[in-house]
């Protein structure tokens, strides 16, 4: 899998920005991507060293509209810790997506 397929987009939220200050960057990643792939993808795309990768599967919320019942898509979240002092210009990547 290509790096750009593994990393889908950065998560832009208050929480993710707070974490980013401590060098932990949050992404939405491919649901089948594993930690090693994520580590490699981030290192390749942003030219930083990755120390640690945490992942979580986020369950899609059940949604109803009238009689039709459905769920939102489930997705995978990855929080990547980079080497101390290194930064991902996360806002620039934000403009790309």
């Amino acid at each position: 899998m290509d790096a750009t397929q593994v990393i889908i987009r950065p998560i832009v939220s208050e929480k993710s920005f707070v974490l980013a200050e401590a060098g932990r960057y949050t992404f939405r990643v491919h649901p089948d991507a594993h930690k090693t792939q994520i580590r490699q993808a981030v290192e390749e795309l942003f030219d930083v060293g990755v120390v640690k990768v945490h992942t979580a599967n986020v369950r899609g919320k059940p949604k109803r509209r009238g009689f039709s019942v459905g769920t939102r898509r489930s997705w995978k979240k990855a929080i990547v810790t980079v080497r101390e002092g290194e930064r991902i210009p996360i806002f620039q990547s934000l403009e790309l997506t």
Partner: protein
Amino acid sequence: MGTASRYRAATVRQIVSVTSVDLPESRVTLNVEVLAPALERSINRAADSIGQTLRIPGFRKGKVPAAVVISRVGREAVIDEAIRADLPVWYAEAVAEAGIEPVGDPRIDIGELPQEEGKPLGFTVEIGVRPEAKLGNYTGLKVDREELDVGDERINEEVERLREQAGRLEPSEAPAADGDTIVMNYRGSIDGVDFDGGTGTDQVIELGSGQFIPGFEEQLVGAGKGEDRTIEVTFPEDYQAEQLAGKDAVFAVEVTDVRTSKLPDLDDSFAEEMGYETLTALRDDIRERMTESEDRRIRATFREACIDAASEKAKIEVPDSLIQGRASEIWEQTVRSLAAQGINREIYMQITGKTEEEVIAEAAPDAERSLRREATIAAIVEKEGIVPTDLQLEDALEHSAGHEGVTPRELLVTLREDGRADQLEKELAARLAVDLVEESAKPNLVKPKKD
């Protein structure tokens, strides 16, 4: 978020760089560049303030980071906001950096907005500056000085005023004379019909004070206690109550009491009442205080006259545009001080019945005089190389230091740290320059003008 450190840094680091180009008519153009780090700081501040009202998914209101705001609303909009907020600061910095003394309103042109991060923002300011004076002679000038004259006459006036204040009202059985106070009940009617507000009881009135309708008080002269009188008066045409204006009215007046004002005798016991031992002591004290205040007034006038004389000897070109500029500054100041009294611009215009342009035009002579004075003083300060010493500065601070409960030296140090000492130094240097002219001037004593 490091806000505190950001502001502290702002006071230390240089914010703008300036080059100035002289123009004719005592104007200059300043080419100002807001340095990139300073600009970045104010852009971030502007983004924060925009973010206060922005709703972006993933963030609570007011918690949006500056970077997100910038990418959301666009860098240009954020720079606009930053300019709106910080241009006055940049302008003040630029003026200080260029070391000019601005007069009038600046014309500010903002150039192209920098697109990329790390580029400075340039703008130009066109502003009038205080004209330069080519000094003529400024020492040993002949200047009129009012003679200090606190004669017996003026002291008598003052004593008389005190006596009148100390006067007491005493009941009198004699008919009321002019200057007496009477107490009365009255009922007024027009064509035999009572009118609103035409009746009153226990009304106190001083005859001859002119508080009532013309003719009313005069017709009460000679009335004794308990006497009834009928008074016929005509309301003036311009009386406030319109339904009464110009009407003939009849007042039935019952005088219930007559009091005559009794002035205390001019002797030592009067002086004692005023808190002095003897009448002579009272007079001496009045003399002393009058002398002091007169002396201060004369000295201030003399100092101004000295500078005026010096500026007359000097060559100063004051272009009209500058005078206009200063005149409108004076006007703005007036507006501010009026606002402190709760009078706003519109009301003032109504009271005086003038337009703003007229008021400014009237201020022009004052504006020109003050410009000339300032130019002269600045030139003297420069030529004489007047720099106030620390000791002199501390002397000047004595008073305000006492207020804040610190020593003058401590206050001076604090002012220096805050960068506020410059202003003080300038003012003091100006005062010293005036001292110089004053001390060397040959006073030409003149009799005080009677007013």
